[in-house]
């Protein structure tokens, strides 16, 4: 939980109490390590994405150039 300056002390205390209660719940049910197949699937998805689009984040199509002005 991130405390924020705009919060009243009362709200902050309530949020901290809630955070502790839900953190206890989360601690009682830890996620464990990521399953190996998830990591494999993730790596495959990244490779597939790279093949299909090139590097992720790059433009799919280069920006069109304005045609030269007619004289």
């Amino acid at each position, binding site marked *: *939980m*991130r405390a*924020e300056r*705009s*919060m*009243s002390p*009362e*709200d902050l205390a*309530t*949020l901290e*109490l*809630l*955070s*502790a*209660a*839900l*953190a*206890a*719940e*989360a*601690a*009682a*049910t*830890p*996620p464990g390590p*990521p*399953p190996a197949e*998830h*990591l494999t*699937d*993730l*790596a495959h*998805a*990244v*490779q597939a*994405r*790279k093949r299909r*689009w090139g*590097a*992720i*984040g790059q433009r*799919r199509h280069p920006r069109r150039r304005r045609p030269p002005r007619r004289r």
Partner: protein
Amino acid sequence: MAAGSAPLEDPEALKRLVDRALHGDADAWTTLYARLRPRLFAFCLRRLGNREDAEDAVAETMMRAVRSAGQFRWRGAGFDAWVFRICKNVIIDMSRSRSRQTALVGRGERPLDPASVEEQAALSEEHAAVRRAFDHLSQDDRDLLELRVVAGLSSEEAAYVLQRRPGAVRVAQSRALKRLRTYLAEEDQ
């Protein structure tokens, strides 16, 4: 403190890591997955009620993040908020498909796996009271507070996930916390 893990480390280091991921670095994605996994899992577990669905939702969230990585821009609320918005949509999709398969589970009847029943007994009475009070809140209130507390997002990031204005989210948060205090006071009586 977020329920799962610390929300952010060095923002610059995170930005470099995300940029590597966006350029197709599989190791960077694995690191991001490991970093977000505890919070995503805790968030999904609260919303879906059992480990298997939570695991599936986390995996699906990261797969969708990879597939739509080209749409991510730093000008939004940041990478974590972007992933949690995807996660929220995954949970909605899974809840819909589950509701088609089984009867709808009413509020306060969230199914718990056998392990969590034992876990509940181990929790302190105060925590249990807070959780009971929390379960009385509306779905909108719980959505917001879970994003703040379980997902460890700021108000701005939670606003991005909920597609609302940050100011409106701050007001809604204050009202939700006030309602929570009211329910807690009723628990004490």
